[in-house]
């Protein structure tokens, strides 16, 4: 039977508790981003554009919105006869069943899926990040250095190193240290949560990790350190493009604002690496006679009767007469009603800013959570 060279496993099961307010009804990868996308679209599009046609999406927390968006994967050209997009949730077996208890456990419980396609490589990804990356180049690198495991790494601002797994490498790229969320980081080279494994190596270590009672069954905390300890050949693949973890309100806001800045390097208009999403069939958006839009991204179906400056508006957002909305992100169906002022804020799904003003400051972006009516 024909085998796939590389199968991707996309971890999409988390709530994203630091993004709560926007995740009360959906998993983090399903959260809208960039006026017409959802966060998971970037990773899925990367898969398709990199030539990967078989992806298991591991879901757990509130998967309805996400699963409806994914469908059979047609939007990313993954509705295939052999392979394609598979939604993999936790399930019952003869002797009971368990929720996924960690990233490694989620993959372990889906060994059957991997064995079905018998791939040479398994690419573990997360559905939480905004970036464009050609995974096939990482596979080429992995083959060239004869690694058993390759981890994608990116430089992060020093202030943020406490959020990531920090990786120490030799000159030739071989990994010698991996510490999750260190207090005293050795450098600012962070794991992107992108792991490329030789399939057999992965399966061996997963089976071993499952036996361990102390393990939290997490790649970063348990499996990778175990491999490192056994001197498995682990290499770091440096990524130099734009990459953002949008797991907090502030980072989500900042990444949205980055889209409005031509210099960031994440070009949504680059035809050689499109970002695909499940089709909207909404009408063109409408700017009224007194509407003003400047330096912003607008999704379909929006109605703008007020002033919008430096904002990202998702589909069907309503901006009323006499309003001013600046430096803000509005999720689908959000409304800003007559005379209100919104600055440096995120307005959740279908929420309404009824009157008065809502202003964030340099430290904190203001947030109106999903389905809330705000009046100041």
């Amino acid at each position, binding site marked *: 039977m024909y085998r796939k060279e590389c199968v991707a496993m996309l971890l999409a099961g988390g709530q994203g508790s630091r993004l709560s307010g926007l995740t009360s009804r959906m998993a983090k990868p399903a959260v809208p981003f960039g*006026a017409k996308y959802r966060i998971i679209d970037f990773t899925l599009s990367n898969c398709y554009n990199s030539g990967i046609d078989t992806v298991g999406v591991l879901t757990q927390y509130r998967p309805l919105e996400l699963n409806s968006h994914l469908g059979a994967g047609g939007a990313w050209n993954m509705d295939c006869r052999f392979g394609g997009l598979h939604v993999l949730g936790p399930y019952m077996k003869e002797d009971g069943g368990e929720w996924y208890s960690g990233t490694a456990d989620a993959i372990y419980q889906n060994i059957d899926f991997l064995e079905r396609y018998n791939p040479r490589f398994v690419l573990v990804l997360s559905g939480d990040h905004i970036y464009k990356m050609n995974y096939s180049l990482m596979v080429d690198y992995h083959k060239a250095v004869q690694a058993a495991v390759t981890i994608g790494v990116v430089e992060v601002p020093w202030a943020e190193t406490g959020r990531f797994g920090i990786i120490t490498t030799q000159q030739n790229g071989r990994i010698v240290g991996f510490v999750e969320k260190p207090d005293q980081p050795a450098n600012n080279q962070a794991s992107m949560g992108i792991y490329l494994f030789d399939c057999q190596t992965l399966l061996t270590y997963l089976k071993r990790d499952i036996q361990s009672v102390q393990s939290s069954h997490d790649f970063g905390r348990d499996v990778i350190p175990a491999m490192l300890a056994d001197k498995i050949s682990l290499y770091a693949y440096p990524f130099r493009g734009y990459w953002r973890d949008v797991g907090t309100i502030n980072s989500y806001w900042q990444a949205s604002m980055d889209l409005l800045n031509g210099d960031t390097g994440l070009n949504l208009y680059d035809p050689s690496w499109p970002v695909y999403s499940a089709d909207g*069939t909404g009408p*063109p958006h*409408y700017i009224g006679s007194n509407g003003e839009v400047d*330096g*912003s991204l607008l999704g*379909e179906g929006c109605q703008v009767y007020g002033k919008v400056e430096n904002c990202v508006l998702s589909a069907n957002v309503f901006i009323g007469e006499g309003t001013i909305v600046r430096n803000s992100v509005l999720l689908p169906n959000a409304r800003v009603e007559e005379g209100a002022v919104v600055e440096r804020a995120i307005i959740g799904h279908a929420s309404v800013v009824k009157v008065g003003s809502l202003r964030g400051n340099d430290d904190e972006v203001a947030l109106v959570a999903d389905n809330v009516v705000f009046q100041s």
Partner: protein
Amino acid sequence: MSDGIIGLISTRAHDDCLQGLTEQRPLAAVPFCGRYRLIDFILSGMVNAGITNIGVLLQNKHRPLLDYLQSGKAWDLSRKRDGLVLLPPAYQLANQGLAGDLYTIYHNKDFLHKSQHRYVAIAGTGVICQLDFRQALAFHQQKRAQITVCTAQSYNQAAYCCQQEKLMVDQAGQVTAIIRDEEGVHGLDIAILERNLFIELVDSAMECGGQDFFRDCILPNLNNYHVFAYEHGGYAARIDCLSAFYRHNMDLLKRDTWQQLFAQPELIYTKGKDEPPAHYLPGARVNHSLVAGGCVVGGTVENSILFRGVHIQPGASVRNSILMNRTVVEQGAIIDTVICDKEARITAGKVLIGTPEAPAVVRKGIVM
């Protein structure tokens, strides 16, 4: 035989009426209002009424329509049973110069014979309306009509160019005559009748050299059959000349008109493409306009409709215009009352001005 309806969408003889815009495409494929094509309205209306066995008659210049419709997936018509069927023209059509849809219907009679459904709803694509086919059928059954033609008291904009025939309708709702004056109602180019009668009418009209279904099967038979008029109360617009096309597009910039057509519970389906969201650059000045996805707007846009992927460079000025997919207006260009077909390009500093009765048309791919 079930009580269902077979949909038949036809391209009629006078559909070649939008000059540059219908030069290389049938009327059905003409882009409208920022992201739609004329056929979307009737297709969506049928699908929303549960009509899922739909034949689209292809005449000449049908490649853009084939390309657009493909499997019908965007309208939920890519199905195991029924679904979208493309009905090709017969080769003889070109040689005989037959302009109407009758020959193509006749050539594709198999499509009708194979269906289990009892009724046929035939519709043109030159009239935009969200007709409720279910209600029209209920009316047809209730009146025990043999043929029901759908009508409207008036169109949204009285801007029709060709002298329109109107229908005289009596108290009982029966169509009695064709007239050309103030009284009477407008036909919407939509009719419902039983499949067997439909086939009979097509066969006899063909024998007499008929060319167009409405003109040669229905109108001559007003006194031979019970023909009733079902009145559609909502938005209706006839696109039969460039000025009408322009006016109806512009009219949809008014929120009230917009609500009438688009703010119904039933969606209007259309085929999407994966363009990124519309991006307004700093310094963009846009008002009273409709803007579709993928546009990059840097200049001034007023009272206009921008289709997908249109670029308005900083310093450009666009007023009262309709710019179709991927049109580029370069810096310093000034355009007013212009219709640009896809991928037109107005170069830096160019000035182009039309009038509402005669909008300037820039054809597909042309650089000005």
